[in-house]
């Protein structure tokens, strides 16, 4: 039995390492895009250390790059991160933590650590998968963000290097796996149309926030929408309650 536990744990650690390297590496793109959006190297690194959620970080600097103000950037980053609360609720009973360990666990509760942990079967492998993935990505992601920020700083005019287009590609990459579900696809198209339609009439930053209304309307009020697989992410687990799409193991 002990041997079975340790091999499951070893596997969980190995998976964690692979996901950490793959995810950490693209911190480079966040660092470069953040500096291109107008944040300093130090601001980029501090944002990444405190916020530590790829989608939220990209969203924050995306709003700044589009000319939006701080409040709109904060609100957009926070809303993109709302799903992390669900990951926390999923992980808390599996981790069984109290006090300062729980405060630490919260900071590394992201797409990948939740996906890796909930993919394990042994209770100890669940815990190790969560911590190794969460801490591994925290260290590597922030290291590569720093590297990318210095690189972005050295590049000069972001448009010459196509960094403005790289931001669009990055957001498409972040949302891609979530579009497997048809409802999510329609919400994505609807949100894009709403944001573009409001761009000429609202101050920068607000059209993106307004587009979130499409998701709330569809997610909350769509009639007869509490059927199976209705979490809008295309995610599915053996028990039907996984919150994280499988593809997200490759992206934060």
């Amino acid at each position, binding site marked *: 039995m002990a041997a079975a536990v340790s091999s499951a744990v070893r596997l969980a650690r190995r998976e964690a390492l692979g996901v950490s390297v793959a995810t950490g590496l693209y911190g480079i793109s966040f660092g470069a895009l953040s500096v291109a959006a107008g944040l300093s190297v130090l601001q980029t690194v501090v944002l990444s250390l405190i916020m530590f959620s790829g989608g939220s970080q990209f*969203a924050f600097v995306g709003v700044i790059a589009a000319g939006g103000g701080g409040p709109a950037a904060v609100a957009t980053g926070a809303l993109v991160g709302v*799903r992390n609360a669900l990951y926390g609720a999923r992980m*808390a009973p599996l981790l069984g933590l109290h006090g300062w360990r729980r405060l630490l666990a919260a900071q590394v509760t992201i797409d990948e650590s939740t996906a890796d942990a909930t993919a394990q079967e042994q209770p100890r492998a669940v815990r190790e998968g969560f911590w190794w993935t969460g801490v591994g990505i925290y260290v590597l992601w922030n290291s590569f963000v720093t590297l990318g920020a210095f690189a972005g700083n050295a590049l000069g005019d972001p448009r010459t290097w*196509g960094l403005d287009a790289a931001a669009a590609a990055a957001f498409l990459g972040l949302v891609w796996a979530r579009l497997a579900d048809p409802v999510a696809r329609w919400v994505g198209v609807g949100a*894009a149309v709403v944001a573009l339609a409001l761009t000429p009439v609202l101050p920068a930053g607000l059209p*993106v926030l307004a587009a979130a209304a499409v998701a709330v309307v569809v997610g909350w009020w769509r009639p007869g*929408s509490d059927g199976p697989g209705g979490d809008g992410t295309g995610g599915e687990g053996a028990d039907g309650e996984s919150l994280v799409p499988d593809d997200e193991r490759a992206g934060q």
Partner: protein
Amino acid sequence: MSPDVLMWLAIVAGGLAVYAIKLVGHLLPEHWLAEPRVARTAALVTVALLSALVAIQTFASGQGLTVDARLPALVVAAIALALRAPFLVVVVLGAAVAAGVRALGWMA
């Protein structure tokens, strides 16, 4: 306040907000957030915001809308994603296409 101070305030506020959201998940009783409608809405909010950002980053220019080198970059990024290219490859391809199109003087 200077723009730099305001940026720092936004960075700290945004960072703490995202952390607080994670912590709330750990502290609330699991069943509160286990309701399918809550999970579905939260997931769709992420999809909606990221999709809106794709659109804005591709077509917005200040308060106007424009078609420029970012569009072919996005098309190439989508093809790369459909072919299951890694995230970093997609981002670098997007940048390269836009930079190349601009260098050739095809689109502003």
